[in-house]
């Protein structure tokens, strides 16, 4: 008799059927998966999300500042062949936390293999008269219907997964189907560019009520006014253990920093070299189908617009409190108002 056959038979004699209690191990896995998700997915991603918001805001704000500061001083960005940018427009803004490349690795070693994720998804609606800009923020934990894109089949999944597997194109298609809006343009911001933008501006000035000494954010600063380079500015927006330690306080710090950057950008309007460097840094961290001319034109039109931020109405997912679904008919009503 074949020795492998004999061994196989021995195995059959030694066999035990799985007991019903094996299901406890399944629960252990599910518990483990929930516990582990918190530090990696949620909390670690949080500061990145804020950072992306800052970078996105800055990418949008800088052209606005340039234009507001005086068009004739910037021959570099003067429109040559204006595209047709009239009428109502919807622009998809995505802030991603891709941390590929050496510049980013040191900020997220734990997430080095996580791939690109959309941390901030905004739909900016620009009405034809450009008096207001409505920015609708799409929660990234939304469970939505994702249409077939490329090799990925249609499915119901996290909206983030549309971006992760199908990139900007798939996210755009998904959102167009969900909202019924035509998304005329898309802007993608990589938050890593943030640091370079600050450096290109020659640093920013912030005032701190308390001294900072935070190893996690790699930041040590005295109380009072400090001048931050790109590295320190990044640490500043990452800062968690400061003040009351809340996310709300951190978001405030992030806006403080954006304002500081805008101030700095305005003050450099007389210095074409600095401006050009800052613009180049912004440009390299932003991917978009908008031409520089179109961005410039939009910025001109929007320089006096009022920004109205809002969020897609949502409610917790019935099967998973960690996920959410869009609340109907409220969500449809919101988007109908933007058509």
């Amino acid at each position: 008799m074949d020795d492998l056959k004999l061994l196989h038979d021995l195995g059959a004699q030694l066999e035990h059927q799985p007991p019903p209690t094996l299901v406890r191990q399944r629960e252990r896995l599910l518990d483990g998966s929930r516990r582990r998700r918190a530090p990696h997915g949620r909390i670690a991603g949080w500061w990145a999300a804020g950072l992306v918001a800052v970078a996105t805001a800055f990418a949008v704000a800088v052209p606005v500042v340039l234009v507001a500061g005086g068009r004739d001083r910037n021959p570099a960005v003067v429109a040559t062949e204006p595209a047709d940018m009239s009428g109502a427009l919807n622009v998809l803004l995505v802030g991603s936390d891709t941390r590929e490349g050496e510049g980013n690795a040191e900020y997220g070693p734990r997430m080095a293999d996580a791939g690109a994720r959309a941390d901030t998804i905004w739909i900016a609606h620009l009405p034809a008269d450009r008096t207001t800009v409505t920015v609708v923020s799409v929660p990234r934990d939304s469970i939505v219907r994702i249409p077939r894109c490329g090799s990925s089949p249609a499915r119901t999944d996290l909206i983030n997964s549309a971006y992760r597997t199908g990139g900007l194109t798939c996210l755009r298609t998904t959102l167009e189907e969900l909202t019924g809006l035509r998304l005329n343009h898309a802007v993608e911001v990589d938050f890593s560019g943030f640091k370079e933008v600050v450096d290109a501006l020659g640093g920013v000035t912030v005032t701190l009520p308390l001294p900072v000494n935070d190893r996690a954010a790699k930041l040590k600063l005295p109380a009072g006014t400090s001048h931050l380079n790109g590295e320190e500015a990044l640490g500043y927006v990452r800062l968690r253990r400061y003040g009351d330690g809340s996310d709300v306080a951190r978001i405030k710090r992030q806006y403080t920093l954006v304002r500081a950057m805008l101030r700095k950008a305005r003050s450099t309007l007389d210095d074409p070299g600095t401006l050009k460097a800052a613009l180049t840094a912004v440009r390299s961290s932003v991917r978009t189908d908008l031409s520089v001319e179109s961005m410039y034109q939009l910025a001109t039109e929007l320089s006096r617009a009022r920004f109205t931020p809002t969020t897609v109405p949502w409610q917790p997912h019935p099967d998973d409190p960690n996920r959410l679904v869009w609340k109907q008919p409220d969500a449809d009503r919101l988007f109908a108002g933007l058509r």
Partner: protein
Amino acid sequence: MITHPAVRGADSELVSASLTEPEAFAELFDRYSAMLYRYVAKRLGPDHAEDLVGETFLIAFSRRRSYDLIYTDARPWLFGILTKLVSRHHRKEAARYRALLRAPVDSAVESPADRVAAGVSAQAVRADLAGALAALPAKDRDVLLLIAWGDLTYEEVAQALGIPVGTVRSRLNRGRRKVRAALGDTNPVEEE
């Protein structure tokens, strides 16, 4: 489940889906926990099997980002993790095989006459096999049992253990030679 199960054919798709939706990983458990349980219960007995299966999936989950999505079948990956866990219990495993040297065979056989004949020879064969398994170096035993008890192919064993297929073959041959030697090498049909 939140996601449509229909669109998830391959194991690799489940692993990939679990990156954004950790619960998807539970479906891998549903697919393979019984298989892994049977395998590890053969090697270590039912007492530790349950815990080791649970441990295997927890480790797999924590390493799911490094899973190579080229491999649509996750079995080799899971067996590889389980094999490492089993190796921590090598003393228990050897003791189990030694116990088989003495234990009576209780397999069902038709007639009383068969029973005596089959019982005697099965007992003898079982003792020889168990003795050979207990004496095998761990590396050879892993390969031999992944094939004989885990029903993996050579390629799958290579993938599970992270070794070349040629190494799988040489370890398997060495293991089988020793098993045959323990069986007395009596069957001429087996000579290759």
